[in-house]
């Protein structure tokens, strides 16, 4: 950008090498970014590098290793690979992300956005308020509310009782389903709002033209609406995935990762190892794996829904 604005300038100053002048100029012009870059390095890259380093030590919360952790290379990672519980956690994390973020929040959010577009004013206001309330609640409050809903003497079982159905201890019997539904309930509003905004940007004349050409509702949606809002879809997928990957409070409050390890996703496992079992280095290794997993998801989205191809 900076160089484009100055065509031909170099020819007026033959004494100096054009290359170095350009470098100096572009350096000068990017200099306002320096503070932002420094802050990013300090508060984003810093902790990541530190966590990488931490995962290569046997640091612990107490004991001799708290005072003087040793550098153990990739021991923690080797231990993780050997640990069946880690693989189970990895699968649970993928199930949680795919079921609650990719499928639940996205599809439901899209469906709600489409329905709201078609709905009348008051209806729209009422529905969007109800949906957004679950999103506005702080995570800890939402988690307690959902615990109260799924607990064995909770709302769900009382309501089932009205129909003569005997409930179950959902958080014990189906812990993953409970936390997945909880996360869908909590996160759908975000997707709905993103998609509502995106749908408003689709020019109605294009859809109308397609309608006149005889395109069915589904065809109009899949051939026109979706391609036009693909940027929003990709951004939303990325955001909900990363948000869901990091969900901790919801699961910790509802099931504590249990029973046993039945709902221990990677963040819960990392917390358990680092802060309950005092193995900070090992826990950090799990956190680093979670970080890498998030990075992989991000790359897949960017590749799959290349925004620049239009």
């Amino acid at each position, binding site marked *: 950008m900076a160089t484009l604005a100055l065509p031909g300038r170099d020819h007026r100053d033959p004494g100096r090498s054009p290359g170095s002048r350009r470098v100096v100029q572009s350096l*000068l*012009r990017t*200099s*306002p970014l*320096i*503070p*932002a870059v*420094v*802050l990013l390095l300090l508060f984003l890259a810093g902790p990541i590098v530190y966590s990488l380093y931490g995962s290569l030590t046997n640091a*612990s*919360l*107490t*004991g*001799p*290793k*708290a*005072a003087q952790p040793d550098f153990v290379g990739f021991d923690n990672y080797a*231990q993780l690979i050997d640990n069946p519980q880690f693989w189970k956690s990895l699968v649970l994390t993928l199930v949680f992300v795919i079921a609650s973020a990719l499928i639940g929040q996205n599809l439901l959010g899209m469906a709600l956005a489409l329905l709201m577009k078609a709905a009348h004013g008051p209806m729209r206001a009422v529905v969007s308020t109800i949906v957004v309330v679950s999103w506005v609640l702080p995570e800890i409050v939402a988690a307690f509310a959902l615990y109260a809903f799924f*607990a*064995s003497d909770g709302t769900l079982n009382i309501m089932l009782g009205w129909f003569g159905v005997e409930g179950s*201890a959902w*958080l*014990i019997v189906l812990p993953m389903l409970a936390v997945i539904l909880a996360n869908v309930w909590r996160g759908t509003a975000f997707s709905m709002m993103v998609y509502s905004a995106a749908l408003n940007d689709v020019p109605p004349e294009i859809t109308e033209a397609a309608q006149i050409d005889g395109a069915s509702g589904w065809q109009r949606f899949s051939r026109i609406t979706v391609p036009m809002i693909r940027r929003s879809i990709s951004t939303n997928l990325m955001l909900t995935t990363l948000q869901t990957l990091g969900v901790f409070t919801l699961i910790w409050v509802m099931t*504590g990762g*249990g*029973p*046993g*390890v*039945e709902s221990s996703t990677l963040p819960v496992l990392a917390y*358990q190892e680092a*802060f*309950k*079992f*005092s*193995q900070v280095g090992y826990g950090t290794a799990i956190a680093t794996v979670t970080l890498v997993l998030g990075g992989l998801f991000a790359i897949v989205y960017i590749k799959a829904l290349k925004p620049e191809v239009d």
Partner: protein
Amino acid sequence: MRTTARLVTSAAALALVLTACSGGSEDSGGGDGGSGDQTIKVAYQKTDAFFQLDELLVKSKAEFEEANPGWTVQLEPIAAQETDYFTKLALMNGSPDTAPDVIYEDTFQVRPDAAAGFLAPMDDYLAEWEDWAQFPEGIRAAGLGDDGSTYGVSMGTDTRGVYYNKEIFAQAGLPEDWQPETWDDLLEAARTVKAEVPDVIPMNVYASKAQGEGTSMQGFEMLLYGTDDTLYDADAGKWIVGSQGFEDTLTFLQTLQDEELMPGLEDALDTNLPNRVSTELLPEGRLAIAVDGSWMPGGWMSGDNAWPEWEETMGMTAMPTQNGQEPGATSMSGGWLLSIGANADDPEMAFNFIANTLNEENSFKFATENSQIAARDDVAANPDYVSFNPSFEFFSSLVPVTNFRPATPDYAQISNNIQVAAESVITGQATPEQAAETYDQAITRVVGDENVSEAS
């Protein structure tokens, strides 16, 4: 021009942010300033069932501040169950800015915390403390670190036994003076309760990660130390793997779970179960048999959950050994201490506060109100102490058969793996055999191949 201006502004903003980040470490910690603002920060645990320590410290704070003008004792109760208390304490200790000056420490945490450099040795102060003579040798040992220095003064010790509800036993046709001699006797009684009084929980043994050390000590080890095996061979300094006793203990838990003789999983996995046992389940007659600690009557004698009828309702009996083998009963003992934080600005004053908190009068108050087995000889010999609580006699009688946890810095991690094993069995995720194998592998990883030995 504009670029430069922006640059300057951003640089200034950055500088501001950086100072904001680095600030704050200057004035915390307290104590360095002139007279009048010296502070001793005390970190301890407080819950609705454990309020006696809070009362003791409030009393001691008033006495100490009066005797030492210019000094303030800043009480920092941590309202959390045991596992969360340890986590919060470790995090506080992680930075000198937040590290407390006086710490309420569990005995098994003393060694690891001393090794981590969180605690200050107190030998110099103890040498000059005339009350120290009142603490017998065995009690003093609880505060020893790996280096032989003393890192804590004991507040008292405890034992563990079996509580049973005589009213429920009467309904079930079980004897009022119940004396189980084997594990099978325990199971038989629980089965009878289940058959005769179906709406109560027959028996509680802690068995999940949520109850932390309670699961290891009140639950698992109370059983294991009644078998022919133990956790640790202290003479050889090796941890035991592949022991039959370990597997039998897990099998006992599995039996309780399979026959629905223990609380349902929702309760069994509840962090608050220990509180609920003492404030709800036993007083409301919803639990027939509970393996638990000697401190429990403390919460029934006074406080928010006072339950004066406990003396008539609750029976107490010793935990039997597996097959009635010698010595016929078993128990576990732990206890808590007061320690000085390594970052205390004035360790001597911190020690003086501890000395005041554990003087004869205050030790008596704590030992009686919190149902402790007194640490000090003068308190233990006090007739008012002995007659204060009818359960003292019983729980003191367990001292000859009691066991202590292996005092090594690794114990905390071994204990975690015990909890994992117990929970995996009661949730049906592993058989006792598999869980024992997982435990063996895990502790071998923790302590190294050279520090484990196969059970003979």
